[in-house]
């Protein structure tokens, strides 16, 4: 019997090997066929790729359109890019792309693009280092792709309180996490004029990485469970509209850039101990409008950023709503709603280099004593928003344990009414009266997970 059992096992093993080899040979031969079709295709031709597994890598060096039918899988060899786009005007649509190399120093990606005007749409990218990597290729379009990094199946970003995560001390890039060994969802380097719309990115290192990438439009993308939803530097004149950056470890960080427009985006639930909803560092001449920034450790942080227009945003339920460094000047804050933040504003000085009223309209503040005798919706007396903790937050972080304490509230109330000098804070000369549904549909403090959660939006007084 034992001998018989051993024989059965051997037969099973042989069968398994045979099946595997058959699949590989088939995929390999399918890949060869596809490569041959690409090789034979005329420039501008459209190749419809049937369902099946196609072993890569593939190098597309002529302008062709590859349309994958449902079930068409481009599988890399784990050594290099799965698809390398080397010619302009290449289109890749409808594929599942997987199995890139893992060498960060070689920028291995599922789709690596050096040809201009590439169109990458409706693909599903998994099991790769970078999702889409663009290198010196302009005017590409990335639409409706789903990109899942290695951590996509790991669930939401861990709650730092429940996991006792102990981040690094770094001020901006202080998140030490396994994300460092992963690639980015979309990585743009040294290029201009892209359009990135409707993509869904999760579980990668950073969601979208910009470096020297100008004049790009980013719309309606959803980025979650990554390190930085947006990691961005030296990139000018870009527009971000209606994107959602949620549940990321460190939030969205934009640095050393100018001429940006951020409108109608949602930055939420970025909750590690140094996470930001939105971070500007040396970002100038930029408009930030109608965004929702909620449930973050620090909602919106401006450091050394000048001439930024911050208008009609909702800063809701953050631990600190807005932090403005002394080095930030010439920025204008108006019609923003500060609601349910534990600390609405953090600042180290009087912030007189920035304007808190534009064209006679200030901002909505929690607990403001607003007197509006002429009923024009604008308060008749200035509102003082003091920051009681000030720089102690960094020199004595334990002070954060006094957040929302009655004593802190009482002192803040007194300071806001008496406007005593010497305490950091901002003064809004014309605070706005009741924001009209400011609290409606506005959850605040976020819990980890996919939903925005917990709403002290109505409870945080002055």
């Amino acid at each position, binding site marked *: 019997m034992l001998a018989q059992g051993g024989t059965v096992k051997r037969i099973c093993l042989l069968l398994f090997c045979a099946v595997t080899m058959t699949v590989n040979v088939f995929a390999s031969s399918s890949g060869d066929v596809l490569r041959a079709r690409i090789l034979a295709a005329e420039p501008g031709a459209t190749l419809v790729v049937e369902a099946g597994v196609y072993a890569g890598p593939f190098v597309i060096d002529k302008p062709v359109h590859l349309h994958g039918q449902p079930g068409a899988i481009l599988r890399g060899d784990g050594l290099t890019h799965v698809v390398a786009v080397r010619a302009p005007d290449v289109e890749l649509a409808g594929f599942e792309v997987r199995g890139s190399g893992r060498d960060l120093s070689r920028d291995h990606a599922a789709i690596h693009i050096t040809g201009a005007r590439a169109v990458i749409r409706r693909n599903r990218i998994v099991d790769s280092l970078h999702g889409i990597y663009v290198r010196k290729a302009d005017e590409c379009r990335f639409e409706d792709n789903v990109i899942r990094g290695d951590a996509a199946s790991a669930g939401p970003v861990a709650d730092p309180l429940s996991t006792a995560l102990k981040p690094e001390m770094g001020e901006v890039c202080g998140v030490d996490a396994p994300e460092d060994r992963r690639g980015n969802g979309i990585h743009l380097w040294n290029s201009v004029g892209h359009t990135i719309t409707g993509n869904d990115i999760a579980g990668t290192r950073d969601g979208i990485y910009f470096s020297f990438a100008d004049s790009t439009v980013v719309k309606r993308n959803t980025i979650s469970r990554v390190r930085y939803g947006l990691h961005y530097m030296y990139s000018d004149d870009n527009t971000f509209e209606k994107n959602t950056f949620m549940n990321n470890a460190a939030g969205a960080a934009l640095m050393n850039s100018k001429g940006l427009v951020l409108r109608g985006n949602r930055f939420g639930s970025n909750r590690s101990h140094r996470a930001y909803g939105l971070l500007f560092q040396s970002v100038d001449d930029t408009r930030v409008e109608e965004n929702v920034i909620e449930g973050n450790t620090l909602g919106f942080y401006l450091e050394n950023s000048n001439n930024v227009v911050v208008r009609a945003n909702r800063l809701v339920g953050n631990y600190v709503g807005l932090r403005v460094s002394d080095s930030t000047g010439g920025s204008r804050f108006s019609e923003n709603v500060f609601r349910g933040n534990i600390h609405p504003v953090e600042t180290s000085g009087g912030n007189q280099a920035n304007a808190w009223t534009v064209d006679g309209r200030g901002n909505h503040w929690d607990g403001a004593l607003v007197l509006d005798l002429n009923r024009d919706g604008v308060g008749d007396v200035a509102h003082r928003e003091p920051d009681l903790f000030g720089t102690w937050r960094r020199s004595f972080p334990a002070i954060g344990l006094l957040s929302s304490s009655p004593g802190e509230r009482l002192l803040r109330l007194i300071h806001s009414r008496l406007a005593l000098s010497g305490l950091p804070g901002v003064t809004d000369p014309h605070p706005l009266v009741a924001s009209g549904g400011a609290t409606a549909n506005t959850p605040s403090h*976020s819990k980890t997970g996919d939903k925005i959660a917990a709403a002290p939006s109505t409870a945080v007084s002055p």
Partner: protein
Amino acid sequence: MNTLALPSRRGVACAALRREWLSHRLNRFLYAHLALVLTAGALPLLTPGDALARGAAWWLLHAVLYAVSLSSLLLGLSSAHAEADEFVWLLGQPAGVGPWLGGKALALIVLTGASSALLGLPTLLMGGGSPELMLATAGAAGVAVVCSLAGLAVGFWIRDSVRGLIAAVAMWLVLLFGMDILLLALAGAPAVQANPDWWIVALMLNPFDAYRVTVLFAVERAAFSGLNAGWLAGWWATNAPLWLAVLTFVWSGLALLAAWLGARRRVDG
């Protein structure tokens, strides 16, 4: 004669518990407390739609800090002062103060603890129940019990009703505002900045702060930038419910001890 047919301690405690219950049935203060708790519990219903469940704990925090704590404290105080006229009877009983106080305190604990459940009831009935709400409500019950027992202690030590009321309110103000303001004032001191753990310990010992931190960081899961403030701050922020449970238990015990010491004082003078 049946001179030695004395009741057991349990019998005395049961008699005191029963008496406390009978007494509170007619106590307008208790009904005011219940109305307050129910009103506070119903306030989250004003939060629209889906935010109901999410905002309830935040409401509870403020209701407990600013209203329920004081109400519980005064309930305990009134319970003590209601006995003021009878101390000459009670102290002369052979069973002693302990069992009687035990029964009385138990009744008070049940009353304040159970009434605190009403804080979460409206939200629960409206479908907003959640483990977080239960945690916030349980914490509220703990704080309410501590406050009521503290009120009992104050009432037994200061048997004059006016002076007792002043002392109780002063104690509440110190716990609610004074400690925080003092610690805030001390936060800038170099000695404190060099040894933040002592500062944190002082904060941890205040049941109001312990409840606030629990709701803020364990229930609301508010993002917190002070996790690197040392192991103690991190431990507290991550184990806030456990600490609150231990603290309310210890404070209840201490308040009970203080009440016992106050009650057994002779009626000299």
